[in-house]
């Protein structure tokens, strides 16, 4: 038996009785090993100091004090419940605010729209009417074509109905 195994048996022997064979082997080892004998002495002294000679009683009126504290807490319970939920609501509101802010920061901004020619003229304090009029004229011709297309589509849909 080596010292490591002897220490294991030694520690177990403080809690439970070893098998006769194990006990014999341990004793044989201890007789020839001063280091393990010293360990045995040290462990016994440490364990002896750990096990208290006496345990004091709780302070007086333990039960009465305890029941009074429970009654007090019982009364305060609804208020504490409200307080707990108020804290949660505040935290939730803050979390939403933070998420909204982060969302705003992360959302890609729209590219700046290019100004139309008329708008540019407005900004330059020039009269856009002459330019706009020619544009309107062009659009009207397209509108006319579009209206013809839509009218033909309406006729087809009406026929199906």
């Amino acid at each position: 038996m080596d010292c490591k195994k002897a220490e294991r048996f030694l520690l177990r022997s403080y809690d439970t009785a070893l098998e006769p064979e194990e006990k014999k082997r341990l004793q044989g080892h201890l007789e020839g090993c001063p280091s393990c004998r010293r360990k045995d002495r040290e462990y016994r002294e440490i364990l002896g100091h750990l096990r208290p000679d006496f345990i004091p009683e709780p302070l007086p009126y333990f039960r009465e004090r305890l029941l009074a504290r429970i009654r007090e807490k019982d009364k305060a319970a609804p208020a504490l419940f409200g307080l707990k939920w108020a804290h949660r609501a505040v935290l939730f509101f803050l979390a939403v605010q933070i998420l909204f802010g982060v969302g705003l920061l992360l959302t890609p901004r729209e590219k700046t729209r290019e100004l139309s020619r008329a708008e540019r003229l407005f900004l330059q304090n020039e009269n856009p009417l002459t330019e706009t009029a020619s544009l309107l004229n062009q659009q009207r011709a397209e509108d006319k074509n579009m209206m013809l297309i839509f009218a033909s589509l309406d006729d087809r849909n009406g026929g199906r109905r």
Partner: protein
Amino acid sequence: MDERELIRRSQQGDGEAFGVLIERFKGKVFSLAYGFTQDRTAADDLAQEVFIKAYFSLPRFKARSEFGTWLYRIAVNHAKDFLRKNRSRQKDISIDEIGENRLAAGEKSQEDLRSVEERRATVLAAVERLPEKYRVVLTLRDIEGMSYEDIARILDLSPGTVDSRLHRARQKLRQRLTTSLNRQGGDDGL
């Protein structure tokens, strides 16, 4: 009155029934708290906190384990919190202190020997410095004297794990005490 009946009544808010449960378990809960705190006032306060927590958690107690085991589990968790909060308060054992406590072997004269209480205090100070998982198992077994099976149930561990943790805890404790002692010059153990 039957324990189940007391629990059932306590679950319905019967303070008197819970009072009986307090009377039945206060000794063990206090002893457990004292094992961790080594201070009567702190243990009293801790034990009260344990019962308050138990009272308000009782509606959720499903009797899957024994009431005592459930209560000790609460007590151990509270004790762990206590240890964490008071970690800074824990006493550091310096080599000098060990010397002052005359734990070093070889001091044979009656004058130099300090009382057994002082030795015990030094050993307990060393326990305070153990990592929490070792300290808890060591306290439950070597201070409280609980069985491996009870410790396993309270800590929700296998008895094998309890055994190996306890083994490691005792080894660490001895090493800590003897390392200091050897540095101090003693070599005959405690």
